[in-house]
């Protein structure tokens, strides 16, 4: 990289925040201020919504009135469409924070009887901007305008004039356009827009719909070229701002209890490191969810906020099951220290899950997060790499100093690390649970396979699950765990 001026001296491009969660992060502050940005994508990708949210947030949150020249929907239809997202366009119009102008471009060939220009459009725009003293403008979508003006030479020159006009008047604008097959947009609009181009993509792969956003061009800003997953829900658009994988998060030294006193003892008497990631693996019925529940219970008892993502059992199932092992989690739910979020793994793609998790964490700011289990996420289909999703998630959690626990189902007979291979290297602590039947008597075994940064016990103990809760029993000399577990690079545990 060429030698650059120190960060403090470099002039920065002024930016206008969009108010869209995650988007301002990935763009380093928002859209270029006083310039025209292009948002393009295929039908149904969410570009109109993004543009509308930009205007509404601008008006509501940043005190910047906005004008929308809408070439596709009437004011009434648009208002109805976005009402479900909590955008009250009528109210905003009344308060002169928003002006929506439906521009009907006649699709039937209007007779062209000689020279003309698009001054009518300019005048309408100028009038609207002046009336409410707008700072933001949206042209949605330019496709309809392009289709209606037959003379392409006039169209080109007028579009350029329009974008120059917007910049001259220091308006931050979004223009939406449809994606082309070979070009970014059908008309090649990206050639006209110099400063910022964002592409949205919405595709359905193996019955799962995926939404991604990509910053194609952002002059003057070093931007990530990745595709960021985003989701659209009842609050609008939120983008998952994939954190930079700089591994720069701070390692904390304080500890949190595992919720099981004897397990705490195995971990220097203190438990997990705060902000660390814990993996609990085991075959079916070995007590993984109970481990998670105990951990959560202890945290709530300390007054900490816990977020429990469940992908297999409903919250009420979990509450019932935990009652049978002596854990009453209902009271934490009632006083809002414990939040459950239940979703079927196949309900959306990995990106959708990632986005939903990010969003909820950003909203609730928990200190503990449980994901139970990640098994189905790991095996669900999708083009987004599982490991990379988990890397981003774990990184995100560490940056926020959230202590996280992930449970994973392994299959009897499989070497432990095969199913958890994608995941274990991300985890600071790995606890393995196993059923065994030495001498015919069934029992559960627990083993702390690894726990970075501490002198954890290398002994296997019996895990006793009763209606009084979870307890660790005697040290097992004849355990079956250590020998079959091959941790890459590690020495096999001594028997």
């Amino acid at each position, binding site marked *: 990289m060429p030698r650059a001026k120190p960060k403090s001296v470099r002039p920065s491009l002024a930016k206008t925040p969009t108010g869209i969660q995650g988007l301002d992060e990935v763009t380093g502050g928002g859209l270029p201020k006083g310039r025209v940005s292009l948002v393009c994508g295929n039908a149904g990708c969410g570009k109109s919504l993004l543009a509308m949210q930009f205007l509404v947030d601008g008006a509501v949150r940043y005190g910047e009135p906005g004008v929308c020249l809408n070439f596709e929907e009437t004011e009434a239809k648009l208002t109805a469409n976005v009402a479900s997202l909590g955008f009250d366009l009528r109210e905003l119009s009344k308060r002169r924070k928003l002006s929506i*102008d439906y*521009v*009907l*471009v*006649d699709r039937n060939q*209007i*007779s*062209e*009887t*000689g*020279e*003309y*220009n*698009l*001054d*009518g*459009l*300019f*005048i*309408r725009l*100028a*009038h609207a901007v002046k009336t409410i003293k707008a700072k933001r403008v949206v042209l949605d979508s330019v496709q309809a*305008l392009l289709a*209606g*003006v037959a003379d392409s030479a006039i169209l080109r020159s007028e579009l350029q004039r329009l974008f120059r006009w917007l910049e001259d008047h220091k308006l931050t604008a979004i223009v939406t356009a449809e994606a082309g097959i070979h070009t970014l947009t059908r008309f090649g609009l990206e050639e006209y827009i110099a400063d910022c181009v964002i592409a949205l993509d919405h595709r359905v792969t193996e019955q799962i719909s995926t939404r991604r956003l990509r910053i194609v061009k952002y002059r003057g800003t070093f931007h990530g070229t990745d595709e960021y997953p985003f989701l659209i829900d009842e609050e609008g658009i939120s983008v998952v701002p994939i954190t930079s994988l700089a591994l720069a998060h701070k390692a904390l030294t304080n500890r949190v209890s595992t919720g099981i006193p004897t397990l705490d003892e195995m971990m220097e008497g203190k438990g997990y490191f705060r902000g660390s990631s814990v993996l609990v693996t085991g075959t079916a019925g070995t007590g993984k969810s109970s481990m998670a529940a105990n951990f959560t219970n202890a945290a709530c008892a300390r007054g900490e906020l816990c977020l429990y993502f469940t992908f297999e059992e409903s919250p009420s199932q979990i509450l019932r099951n935990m009652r049978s092992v002596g854990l009453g989690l209902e009271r934490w739910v009632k006083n809002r220290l414990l939040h459950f979020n239940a979703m079927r793994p196949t309900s959306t793609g990995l990106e959708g899950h990632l986005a939903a998790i990010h969003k909820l964490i950003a909203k609730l700011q928990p200190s503990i997060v449980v994901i139970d289990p990640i098994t189905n996420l790991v095996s669900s289909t999708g083009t987004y790499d599982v490991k990379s999703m988990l890397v981003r998630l774990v990184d995100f959690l560490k940056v926020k100093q959230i202590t996280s626990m992930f449970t994973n189902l392994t299959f009897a007979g499989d070497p432990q690390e095969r199913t958890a291979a994608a995941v274990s290297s991300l985890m600071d602590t790995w606890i393995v649970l196993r059923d065994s039947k030495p001498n015919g008597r069934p029992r559960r075994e627990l083993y702390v396979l690894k726990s970075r940064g501490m002198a954890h016990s290398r002994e296997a103990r019996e895990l006793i699950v009763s209606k009084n809760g979870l307890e660790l029993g005697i040290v097992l000399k004849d355990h079956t765990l250590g020998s079959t577990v091959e941790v890459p690079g590690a020495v096999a545990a001594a028997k």
Partner: protein
Amino acid sequence: MKKSSAKKRQSGTSRSNFYILRLYIAGQTPNSVTAIANLKKLCEDKLQGKYRIEVVDLLEKPQLAKGDQIIAIPTLVRRLPPPVKKIIGNLSRTESVIVGLDLQPVR
């Protein structure tokens, strides 16, 4: 209004009609000036007094652009007799004007 205009449309071709034509301009630009001149000449030639020309300057009255959905300048709108017809350009191509406005010359 709708019923009577439907009737008018059917029999309109044979009856002599009174044309109300509204020309939208944006200041006295060369195109607009040309359009006004062309329009006056055309009406004198073909409509023999049975017309009224309204010129709307959107620079003075920008709020009027919305009603007739004006984007291009100049735009000529035939307001009466119905149906409403719209053409754009400085009206140099006379044939296009006649066809576009569906002008029935008054004889």
